[in-house]
């Protein structure tokens, strides 16, 4: 986008403890570095500000546990960030105190994503989560009280020890809280990690069930009035949301192939045909700032073909038609015909949309569709 990136991502890596399955860039402890880190973030923002559009569509604070950041530093950061149509902050339920909710609200945050994962105490323990189910409920209500009326809950399924009945209960609990948005992810445990080692056999058993889990998730949430707008993301339909379009603007930016700037350790940016990733080391990030340098980055140049491939890969995750014009020859039209004939895709008016069955088989369908 020649007019500048309209999406800004900020990474806050601090966590109280590390959950077994986590593969984000996080650091435990270092409470004394919060200030220095925010300095560095704002420093990087100054350096790259010229890449941003005058008006932003979204700002997103992710982590780590952004809400674990020292309150005054978090405030300082939020105040310094440019305004946007949607400002999202990720939160762990147990950190959402009334005063935090108020802090967020007065600093322009209008959307909060709460890492609930599950409402089952035993399963929370498996995931090493600190929050209890009630913490989620409190968090949801406190945010509403503070005037933040766009709340998202994260759920994970396929947890070792989880039964299909457990999942149904989690979905019901989540729906009962009437969040504006729900994300439901399958647990991804990387091979070779402590977590996989500890839960190996059970993870395999869960893998067998994942088929029915995702069907269950889609069925129950759509029955409860949510729109399945992306493979793992649901939002309340406008008629139950005061006419609002509650899809996550920031993430839509990714899925629609928009440019985005990322700040902080391990953050990724994509501007036109360049993608860079900041080095994941906190120490080096701070040192670069202290030395007046840009953060260390790994650069990737994207060819037109790669950009187009990504457009297809990401676009097919959505429930909206993907226009084929401008995608060159990355799409195999014969494969598209076969998929359409097989009831997995609809090809109409120069665009392709996957059917529900096709969306569930999205990985395979995407692979086949790409020439």
């Amino acid at each position, binding site marked *: 986008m020649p007019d500048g990136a309209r999406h800004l*991502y900020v990474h806050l890596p601090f966590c109280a403890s590390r959950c077994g399955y986590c593969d984000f860039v996080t650091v435990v402890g270092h409470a004394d570095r919060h200030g220095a880190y925010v300095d560095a973030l704002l420093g990087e923002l100054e350096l790259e500000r010229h890449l941003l559009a005058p008006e932003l569509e979204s700002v997103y604070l992710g982590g780590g546990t952004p809400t674990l950041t020292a309150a005054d530093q978090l405030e300082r950061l939020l105040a310094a960030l440019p305004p946007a149509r949607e400002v999202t902050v990720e939160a762990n339920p147990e950190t959402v105190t009334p005063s935090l909710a108020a802090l967020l609200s007065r600093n322009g945050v209008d959307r909060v994503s709460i890492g609930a994962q599950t409402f089952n105490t035993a399963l929370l323990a498996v995931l090493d989560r600190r929050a209890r189910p009630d913490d989620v409920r409190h968090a949801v209500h406190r945010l509403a009280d503070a005037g933040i009326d766009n709340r998202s809950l994260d759920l994970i399924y396929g947890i070792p020890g989880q039964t299909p009945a457990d999942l149904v209960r989690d979905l019901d609990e989540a729906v009962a809280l009437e969040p504006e948005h729900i*994300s439901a*992810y*399958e647990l*991804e445990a990387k091979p070779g990690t402590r977590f996989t080692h500890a839960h190996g056999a059970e993870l395999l058993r869960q893998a067998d069930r*994942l*088929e*029915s889990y*995702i*069907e269950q998730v889609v069925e129950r949430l759509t029955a409860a009035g949510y729109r399945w707008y992306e*493979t*793992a993301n649901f939002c309340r339909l406008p008629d139950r949301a005061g006419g609002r379009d509650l899809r996550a603007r920031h*993430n839509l930016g*990714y*899925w629609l192939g928009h440019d*985005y700037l*990322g700040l902080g350790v*391990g*953050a*990724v*940016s*994509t501007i036109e045909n360049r*993608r860079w*990733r900041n080095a994941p080391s906190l120490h080096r990030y701070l040192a670069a700032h202290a030395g007046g340098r840009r953060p260390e980055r790994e650069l*990737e140049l994207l060819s037109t073909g*790669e950009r187009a*491939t*990504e457009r297809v*890969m*990401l676009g097919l*995750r959505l429930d909206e038609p993907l226009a084929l014009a401008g995608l060159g020859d990355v799409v195999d039209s014969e494969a598209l015909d*076969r998929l359409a004939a*097989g009831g*997995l895709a609809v090809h109409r008016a120069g665009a392709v949309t996957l059917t529900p*069955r096709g*969306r*569930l*088989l*999205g*990985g*395979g*369908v*995407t*692979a086949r569709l*790409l020439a």
Partner: protein
Amino acid sequence: MDQSHIRNFSIIAHIDHGKSTLADRILQLTDTVSAREMRDQMLDSMELERERGITIKAQAVRVHWKGHELNLIDTPGHVDFTYEVSRSLQACEGALLVVDAAQGIEAQTLANAYLAIENNLEIVPVVNKIDLPQADPDGAAAEVADLIGDDAANVLRISAKTGQGVDAVLDAIVERIPAPAGEFDAPPRALIFDSSYDQYRGVVAFVRVVDGVFRPREHLRAMALGTRFEAQEIGYMSPAMRPVQELQAGEVGYVITGLKDVSELRVGDTLTAEKRAAAAPLPGYKDVKPMVFAGLFPTESDDYPELRDALEKLKLNDAALFYEPETSQALGFGFRCGFLGLLHMEIVRERLEREFDLDLIVTAPNVAYRVKPLNEEWVEVHTPADLPDSFDEVEEPYIKASIIVPKEFVGQVMELCNDRRGSFDHLEYLSEQRVHLTYELPLAEIVLDYYDQLKSRTRGYASFDYDLAGFRPGNLARVDILVGGEPVDALSLILHRDFAYERGKALVEKLRQEIPRQMFDVAIQAAVGARIIARETVKARRKDVLAKCYGGDITRKRKLLEKQKAGKKRMKQVGGVEVPQEAFLAVLNLNDVAKR
């Protein structure tokens, strides 16, 4: 050397009865090779042979003993190489028939003895390994004498290992084996009993001169093929090649032809001189027919040219290897190869893998069938997929199996043969303990694991040999395997109708386990003609989503997709179904089984 002082002989025996050791000892005793130069079993020139303890190539060596010239022609000792044995025997007047004093007569002793007798050779019976504590020289001598219709007193008793009695063997060769009786003055004729290819010197012919004289630099002609060439060099082996100015009637030696294409010279043909051409050729050999076939495919399809070149080179030294290009929709481009038997197939496969460094897929071996399609003439079929759906008649090759086994295992052996559609032919006692059984069996029933079964059921004591016994009608059908409704040619089988259901079911089940779930149900079926005899289904996946994907995940997910895409290119598409190479291999491949 005048013919009266020449003796041409072979040593024939069952495997491991001491043929090669005896040959070594003869070389030593006649000072052909000094003790220092001696390497055990020196005549075996390939590593493979040394490993397996068998000889593959026939070669000849000239030795001297008490004023006589003795030409020892080494012969392979295994059932598959009856052809090779026969070729060498035609160059001889006599043969040492060697029997292990502890083992007695075994299947190949019989087979080779009959071959020698068929070729009108004078047989000198020898009992070997008399030094072993468990040896029973008298018993073995009696068996051998009985076999050839001679007196037990005429059977020589030796230990090739220690050398005891070997000089008496050499004496016996001189005394009992007749001298060759060709005509010295007649136009030259020599029988080509073997050939090999040397990359520098071209085709080398091993010859037995029957009439006349051959000299180097003469213009020679192969009488049947018509090939003309100049003899670059002629000589004899002792065992190194030694050039001479003449090879005379009765002598055995080699001719370096300078020919670059081994197909220009055929074993069994007669060589004569252009200037004084013989009128008629010597009686040659029949062409051998391959009886066991298997598909050979490179694991990496890029290696196809290498496989083709390797087969060409192998054939130069192995005239019995037969191959033709074959395309399998499952395995790509490869070859259908014909072998004399299972051992021949094994040897070829190992040579391809070891000498040419090829990674191969070997499909299950099958035999040749003869079929008379409706209203057409009889044709031979080498691949199961080629058997037509309907035909008037079909025939399969049969063998006569000769099994020697201790009497306590007779029941096991008979059960095995009966399971394999065998019909009992004959039983006789070779001694109080040992029985000789003959059965007629379809060749198809022994190509896979009959020999292994035989050995394991008899705790290794059985010995086995077979002769082809012609084609017979069979109640056979082609079983096809269909994936997604389409037949997979590489998996077709020709089976006796009684076994069609069981085998078909087993194959279908195996394939079901190997084919990964797809986006739709996959039917796997076994069929005979239009009739489905077994069926399994690989149920469709319901879920195959790419996991969460946000800004930092995009590159990784894209690369994963690209990798999956590349992986899918290696899959075979059958009936719209993606089948990984591994699935076919699991069902077809013998390589892993063979390597055990």
